C-alpha cells in the first residue's frame, strides 16, 4: 500500500522574468543546483533555478541513499531532494520549469536563451545540469528503448513483476538498481564486464546475500533480441569469447554517465569526455560562469560532493558579483 499512498507535494514553480537582471541563474535543480540555491537565497541574492525535467536530478530515482550524512536509516533520493528544494524555496530561490538552450556572455552579463521564458539575464551563472545515463552500446538500443530497455529502475520496475531482468553495470547505481528490482522481478542477472564489482562494499554484500540476484561476470552486451519487445540479451565473455543468450524481459542499464554540457560547448573548456573543467572555486574558463556536481570534471560524483560544489560555487559567484559591482562603481 505504501508504494502508492506515498505522496509528493512538490514546491510551487514560477515563471522567469525577462525584464529584470538576476544575480545568479542556476541551471539544474539536482543536489548541486539546489544547494547553490539555498546559499544564494540566504545571501538574499535574486536567484533562479531552471529545471527542465523534475527537481531532484538523477538521485531522485534512487530508492535508497545511505551515504548522505545525517540520515542514519538512509533516505529515498526523492525525499532528500524534496527537502533540499523546500529549503532553497524557503530562502527565496525561485524554481522555473524551463530549459536553458544556450548561454551567451554580453559584456558582464549572461544571456540565457530558454525554451519558453525568452532571454533571461543574470550576473553569474552556475551550471548544475548533471549527467545522463550512457546508452547501452548495442545496435538495437533505439529499437528497444522503452520496450524493455530502461534507464530508470524506480520508474519502470513495476512492468517486470515476476519476470527475469538483466542489470548491466557493476557500479553503485547498477547494484542498487539490482537490489531494488528484486522487489518486483523473480530473477535479476547482473551483467558486468569485469570479474568483480566496482560498487561500494556495503552494496556488494547486500547483493551477494540476495538469492534473487545472479551474476554474469566478464561479460559485455552484444545484441538485444526480440520481436516487438526485449526477449533476450546476448552477451560475450571477454576472456573466452563465448557468447551466451540470457532470456530476459527487461534490461536496466547503469554503465556510467555522459555530462549534460552541450549548452556550454564552445563557450567553456571541457575535458576529453565533455565534463566541465573548473578551478578550486568551481569557476570555469569563463569568468562568472561556475559548474557544480556531475557535469563537472571531478573524481567523485555523489550527492554530498555535488552539495559541497554548490556551496563553494555560490560563495565564489557572490564574490564575483561583489567584485563586479565594485569595479563598476
Amino acid at each position, binding site marked *: 500500500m505504501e508504494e502508492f499512498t506515498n505522496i509528493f507535494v512538490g514546491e510551487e514553480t514560477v515563471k522567469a522574468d525577462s525584464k529584470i537582471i538576476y544575480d545568479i541563474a542556476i541551471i539544474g535543480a539536482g543536489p548541486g543546483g539546489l544547494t547553490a540555491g539555498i546559499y544564494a537565497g540566504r545571501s538574499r541574492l535574486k536567484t533562479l533555478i531552471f529545471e527542465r525535467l*523534475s527537481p531532484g536530478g538523477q538521485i531522485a530515482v534512487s530508492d535508497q541513499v545511505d551515504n548522505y550524512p545525517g540520515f542514519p536509516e538512509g533516505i529515498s533520493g526523492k525525499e532528500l531532494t524534496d527537502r533540499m528544494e523546500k529549503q532553497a524555496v524557503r530562502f527565496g530561490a525561485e524554481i522555473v520549469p524551463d530549459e536553458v538552450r544556450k548561454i551567451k556572455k554580453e559584456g558582464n552579463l549572461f544571456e540565457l536563451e530558454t525554451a519558453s521564458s525568452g532571454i533571461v539575464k543574470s550576473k553569474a551563472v552556475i551550471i548544475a545540469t548533471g549527467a545522463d545515463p550512457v546508452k547501452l552500446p548495442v545496435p538495437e538500443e533505439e529499437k528497444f528503448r522503452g520496450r524493455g530497455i530502461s534507464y530508470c529502475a524506480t520508474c519502470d520496475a513495476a512492468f517486470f513483476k515476476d519476470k527475469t531482468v538483466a542489470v548491466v553495470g557493476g557500479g553503485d547505481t547498477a547494484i542498487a538498481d539490482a537490489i531494488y528490482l528484486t522487489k518486483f522481478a523473480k530473477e535479476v542477472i547482473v551483467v558486468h564486464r569485469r570479474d568483480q564489482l566496482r560498487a561500494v562494499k556495503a552494496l556488494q554484500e547486500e547483493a551477494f546475500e540476495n538469492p534473487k540476484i545472479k551474476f554474469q561476470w566478464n561479460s559485455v552486451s552484444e545484441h538485444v533480441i526480440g520481436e516487438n519487445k526485449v526477449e533476450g540479451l546476448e552477451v560475450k565473455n571477454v576472456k573466452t569469447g563465448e557468447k551466451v543468450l540470457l532470456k530476459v524481459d527487461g534490461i536496466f542499464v547503469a554503465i556510467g554517465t555522459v555530462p549534460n554540457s552541450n549548452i556550454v560547448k564552445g563557450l567553456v573548456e571541457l575535458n576529453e569526455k565533455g565534463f566541465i573543467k573548473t578551478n578550486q572555486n568551481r569557476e570555469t574558463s569563463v569568468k562568472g560562469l561556475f559548474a557544480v556536481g556531475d557535469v563537472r570534471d571531478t573524481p567523485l560524483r555523489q550527492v554530498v560532493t555535488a552539495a559541497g560544489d554548490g556551496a563553494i560555487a555560490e560563495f565564489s559567484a557572490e564574490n564575483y558579483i561583489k567584485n563586479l559591482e565594485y569595479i563598476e562603481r
Partner: protein
Amino acid sequence: MEKLLKEKDEKYIKDLFSSKLESEVELVLFLQSEGGDKVTKFNSQYLPYTEEILKELVSLSDKLTLTVYKDDKEKEEEYGVEQISALFVEGKNTNKNVIYYGIPSGHEFSSLLEDIIDASRGTTELSDKTKAELKRITSPTEILVFVTPSCPYCPRAVRTAHQMAMENNNIKGVMIEANEFPEWSQKYSVYAVPKVVINDNVQFEGALPEDAYLENVLKGAGKIILE
C-alpha cells in the same frame, strides 16, 4: 482509514489554495463496486485510497468540491468514462477533458494540485507560441500519458497534456496509472514511463520539452508542422 496527507503537507496545500484559487473547481470521481465492468482485478484495492486522498484534498479549500458517482452508468456515459477509477477536473477552462485514470498519488499528486490551480484561474503557463499552435486543432484529439506513481519524470508529461486540454477543449488529456491498468498498458506496449500516445498513431517515450511535445501532438492530430 488512516489519513493519507501529512499535516505539514496539508498546511502547505491550504496556504497554496487560499492564495491561488479563484473560481470553484469540481473534482468528479467515478467508482464502481467490486466486480464492476470497468474495474480491473489489479486495481480494486486502490479505489478506497483514491477516494480518501480526494476527500482530504477538497477539505482544504472551500472552493473545491468532490462529486462521486458510484455504479452510475448514465453519468459514466455522459463523461465518456473508460475505466475506473476516473477523475475529472472541472473548472473554468475544462470540459470533461482533464482526466486521471487510477490514483493520482506519488509524483502525480503534484500534477493534480497544479491542474486544480489552472482550472480555477482559467489559465495555463504554456508559451504563447504553443497556445497559438494548439488553436489549429479543430477535431477531437486524445493524448494518453502512461505513468507510474514512482516516476519523477512523469508529472511534466501529464501536465503538458492537461494544459493543452485546458487551452483547447478539442483535446482530451488523459493520465493512466500503468500499474492499475496492465491491459491498457499492454495494448500500447508500455514498458517504460512516461509514454505518450496521441490519437493512437503517434507515440513517444520519455519526457520531452514543450516544443517537441507540441510537434508530436500536432502530428498526431494530423496537422502539418510549420517552421
